[in-house]
């Protein structure tokens, strides 16, 4: 149906989760510059496109808190006030960056270095432990296309893609037909390890229910069994030994296996050691067959934030510039630990909502000090901010680069104009950098 008022953009990259689906079709009403239909996307991605339309939840002008209520101000004034807050701070925190494109992230690094602040991205509360483990023991990984075409054994450990990465199964890991896996799902053996019989587990060929927070012991037992060690006891981490033997045999006998792991490993006790053990398990399995692993990244460009921060500073997250050069130590310079120790005296939050996602005690400390939020929507963070700078949403209202969970860079598309006075994240950060430079006399 050809409608003059509607334009269609195809091959759109969805800026929601790390799967970065690249086949969306978006219909936009030309007159109102509103999205009216999204095809091929999952429920969440579709919702993200619709919520970019102007609404009561969306900011379209810079706002400043004045006697408890918000007042619209010009961009120049807003940038000036924000720069003042950041320069005055002795230990400012720049956090977020995972839901924006790579150029803006690069500007964030520049700003953090200028300010001598702390730079962190959302990996610090999700896959940070994976990065720590990779630094310790390396990581045998590959692209999702490879898995799609070759993998005949797929393990989801502590991840629930049906809910968190809704199209992952359909595009890469289960139902999709691959070059060597012509019969899709029937050619793959799916294993799910989780304390809960998740919807992903309900689709699986083998489901292993283990006790919460005991993943390390189970991986450890599997590794020992692979090396021919006879284990004592009847069950490990709540899993009967018979089932572990079955699992070990399945892992060993596949042609090409992959482990996708999620928050179930990184956010439980022993955090990065879980991943460390999982990587060592994969290394061990490569004595028997081909095996790889990939983290299920949440935010669509958190992998990009890690990439950009790494090539610009040498470190992927939790970076401290207070001594003029980048230093790195999660636990010491990671946002939640800093906030728990009450070390921060101002924060700039870019494309993220730490008030919703950090533990309450950390949020309490964040609210004690000036807070600047670069955020398109009303969120628990932005409604408590002192200055709100409204950006265009990357991937919908501006172009840019994003990295998929397997670190493949993809070019995001612009499908419509941003409402009101919104600038892109990159422009806002650029102007902040300029203002800070000017005020510091550089």
């Amino acid at each position, binding site marked *: 149906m050809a409608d003059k008022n509607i334009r269609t953009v195809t091959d759109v990259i969805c800026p929601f989760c790390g799967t970065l689906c690249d086949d969306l079709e978006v219909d936009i009403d030309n007159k109102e510059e509103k999205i009216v239909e999204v095809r091929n996307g999952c429920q969440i991605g579709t919702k993200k496109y619709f919520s970019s339309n102007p609404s009561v939840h969306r900011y379209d002008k810079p706002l400043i808190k004045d006697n408890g209520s918000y007042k619209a101000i010009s961009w120049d004034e807003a940038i000036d006030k924000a720069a003042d807050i950041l320069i005055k701070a*002795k230990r400012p925190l720049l956090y977020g960056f995972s839901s924006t494109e790579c150029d803006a992230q690069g500007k964030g690094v520049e700003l953090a270095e200028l300010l*001598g*602040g702390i730079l962190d991205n959302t990996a610090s509360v999700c896959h940070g432990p994976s990065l720590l483990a990779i630094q310790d023991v390396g990581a045998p990984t590959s692209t999702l296309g490879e898995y799609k075409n070759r993998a005949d054994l797929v393990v989801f450990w502590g991840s629930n893609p049906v809910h968190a990465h809704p199209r992952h199964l359909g595009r890469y890991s289960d139902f999709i037909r691959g070059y060597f896996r012509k019969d899709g799902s029937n050619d793959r053996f799916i294993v799910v390890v989780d304390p809960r019989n998740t919807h992903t587990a309900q689709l699986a060929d083998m489901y292993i229910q283990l006790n919460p927070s005991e993943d390390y012991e189970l991986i*450890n*037992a599997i590794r020992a069994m692979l090396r021919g060690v006879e284990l004592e006891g009847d069950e490990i981490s709540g899993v009967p030994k018979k089932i572990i033997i079955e699992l070990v045999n399945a892992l060993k006998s596949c042609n090409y296996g992959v482990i996708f792991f999620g928050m179930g490993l990184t956010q439980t006790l022993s955090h990065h050691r879980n991943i*460390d053990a999982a990587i060592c398990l994969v290394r061990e399995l490569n004595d028997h067959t081909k095996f790889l692993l990939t983290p299920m990244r949440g935010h669509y460009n958190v992998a990009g934030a890690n990439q950009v921060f790494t090539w610009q500073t040498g470190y992927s997250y939790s970076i401290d510039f207070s001594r003029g050069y980048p230093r790195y*130590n*999660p636990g010491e310079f990671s946002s939640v630990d800093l906030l728990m120790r009450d070390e921060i005296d101002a924060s700039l939050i870019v494309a993220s909502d730490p008030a919703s996602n950090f533990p309450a005690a950390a949020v309490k400390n964040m609210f004690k000090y000036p807070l600047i939020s670069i955020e398109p929507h009303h969120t628990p963070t932005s409604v408590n901010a002192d200055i709100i700078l409204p950006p265009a949403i990357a991937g919908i209202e501006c172009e840019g680069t994003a990295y998929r969970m397997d670190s493949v860079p993809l070019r995001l598309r612009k499908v419509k104009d941003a409402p009101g006075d919104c600038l892109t994240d990159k422009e806002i950060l650029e102007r902040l950098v300029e203002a800070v430079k000017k005020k510091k006399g550089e």
Partner: protein
Amino acid sequence: MVDIKLKLKKAPEFPLEADVITPDQFAGKSAAQIKKLIVYHGNEEKTLGEFFDVTGNGSEVNDIKIIIDGDLSNVKRIGEKMTGGEIIVNGNVGMHVGSKMSGGKILVNGNADDWAGAMLNGGELEITGNAGNYVGAAYRGYWKGMQNGVIKVKGKIGNEALSWVTGSKPGNRFPTLLCGSAGSFLGVHSHGGTIIVEGDCDRCIGADQVRGTIVVKGKINRILPSFKKIGEVKEIELMNGEKIKGNFIEYSGDHSVEKNHSKIDKKTGNISNSSNGRLYVAA
């Protein structure tokens, strides 16, 4: 020995990075010169004199004894990379105390925060209270952690102490940790460390241990499935030749690691006694 006394004037608002508080930095400097040494407070450079009263002049490194009074729980990196002399801290101390030190002695009369004695390469660190996580551990991404020296903690220590510790019999390096009780992942990825725990430990002790000896005189919350029970022993010989008497159950492991020196003979099924990778728990 020459005493140099430091007294904290005011509690720092942000963590104070005072890696200049070492006998090496103080050597040959007068009190006035020591006061001018740079410390980092937030993103600003300050002088040591702004935060501390300093009395006494420095001489030779090995003759210097630094005595610090006050609550230093927000002062980081005291004694970092020191090579000789002595530091006594009367009070709690912040992160990275004595990290990468290679000689001399630090005594903390109080508690220490995380990374105490991280990647220690010689000398002695003694803490009379508790210590945080990562005692004597390897910094992120390093494959060699503590390589020599001794850390003694009277109280409890946190998780992941002595990760990637690397000792060597031929090299005569015996990195050792003595502590009251410990959290989980004690001696993870150990390559020849010696750890003696007077009390109890949490889970995953000696995870991924390739070589090394861990002696627990109390209980372990959960022993990893990849550790194999060998039997009961009445005497333990440590790597440096010292002996501990008592009734212990001997385990070998971690058997999930590829390069484990306590190999299992494929024909006989016996565990080779040739080398280390041992965990002893009180019977």
